[in-house]
């Protein structure tokens, strides 16, 4: 099954690329028309979804359902929004800034923009109201995240390794 998921991920990348190339041919470039950095496949109870890294829009933020939201809020400190809503960007402040990057005023970690988050959200949103909906994100199965430009397998980021099971 994992192989099917990985193969499905490659096929989704091909579809994405062909769509993008059609847009590029008519001069659509830049904001919204660049290749995503990462693609990930997620599977649960026979459902397979492929997600791409991307910025969280207003619509997608409202799609995030409770288990994922709660986990994010317990795992990471929200930024300037209280504890009720999922923040747009959650970050961990460094206590001692690294000397190498001391010119940056503060360091943020981007949460919820990963391809894994996108794929997991699609699975969870599809199962909304279903009694078989998973309460633990660790039960979701993931394919190896892949960079769409080169199809090179990459490792999950630190945040996703906390939330999900690494393949």
């Amino acid at each position: 099954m994992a192989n099917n998921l990985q193969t499905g991920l490659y096929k989704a990348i091909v579809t994405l690329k062909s769509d993008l190339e059609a847009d590029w041919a008519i001069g659509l470039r830049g904001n919204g028309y660049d290749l995503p950095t990462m693609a990930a496949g997620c599977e649960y109870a026979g459902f397979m979804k492929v997600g791409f890294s991307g910025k969280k829009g207003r619509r997608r933020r409202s799609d995030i359902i409770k288990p994922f939201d709660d986990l994010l809020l317990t795992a990471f400190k929200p930024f300037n929004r209280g504890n009720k809503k999922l923040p747009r960007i959650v970050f961990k402040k460094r206590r001692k800034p690294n000397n190498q990057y001391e010119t940056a005023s503060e360091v943020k970690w981007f949460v919820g923009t990963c391809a894994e988050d996108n794929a997991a959200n699609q699975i969870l949103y599809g199962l909304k109201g279903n009694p078989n909906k998973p309460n633990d994100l660790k039960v979701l199965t993931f394919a190896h995240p892949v960079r769409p430009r080169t199809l090179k397998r990459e490792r999950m980021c630190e945040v996703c390794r906390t939330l999900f099971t690494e393949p």
Partner: protein
Amino acid sequence: MFDIDYQVTHDIDYFFVMQTMEKARPIHIASNGGVLPDKLGSMAYIQKSQNEAFNLPYQFDYELNMDYLNLLNAEDFPQEVDVVESGFLQTEHYNQFNDRVDLPFHLKVYAYSFVEMARRGFWSFDRLTEYSTQDMYNARYLSSVYQLVAYPKVSEDVVAQLPYVGHVFRSDSCKFYLGKEKWDFAEWISSSKRIDTVQYERGHYASSGKPRINR
């Protein structure tokens, strides 16, 4: 400039000209989710340079930087069957490698988009993200280590005809690994004062999450 969220989640192609004493080299970089240098210019300018670059014809032969490509692990790439079935490499992509029969399949998968840029006249770089380090944030988003993947095979008299696309900005803040190839700008970089990381102005990471726009 693009929204900071957009920059870290997209693999943006950007172009500039590395200015040397008398000559200029057109450079292509795949950002690989990195934060773009502020000096690249406005979003409209980046879009314009992307459109210009991708509309250039293939007019050069290319060379691959095998010093780097040989370091890539074939296990990190899919099997040939998967890629061929999915149609990731189209016929026109394959045709680029007609003269490289010896090239392993995973390197064709990796390098084809960089070769396309080299055939248009660009020295094509990939941004590396080093996950081995503990400092993952800096490695993933701020790493300014670039690796040359492909470059056009040109003689010096052709250099003047190379395309001029993108914005000229000081690239001495980036660390380039050039492999065995030595160009005049490599010497220029090594002789000039170089910092290993991209330096951002204070306030770039404003609490609003939006980058400061420098025009």
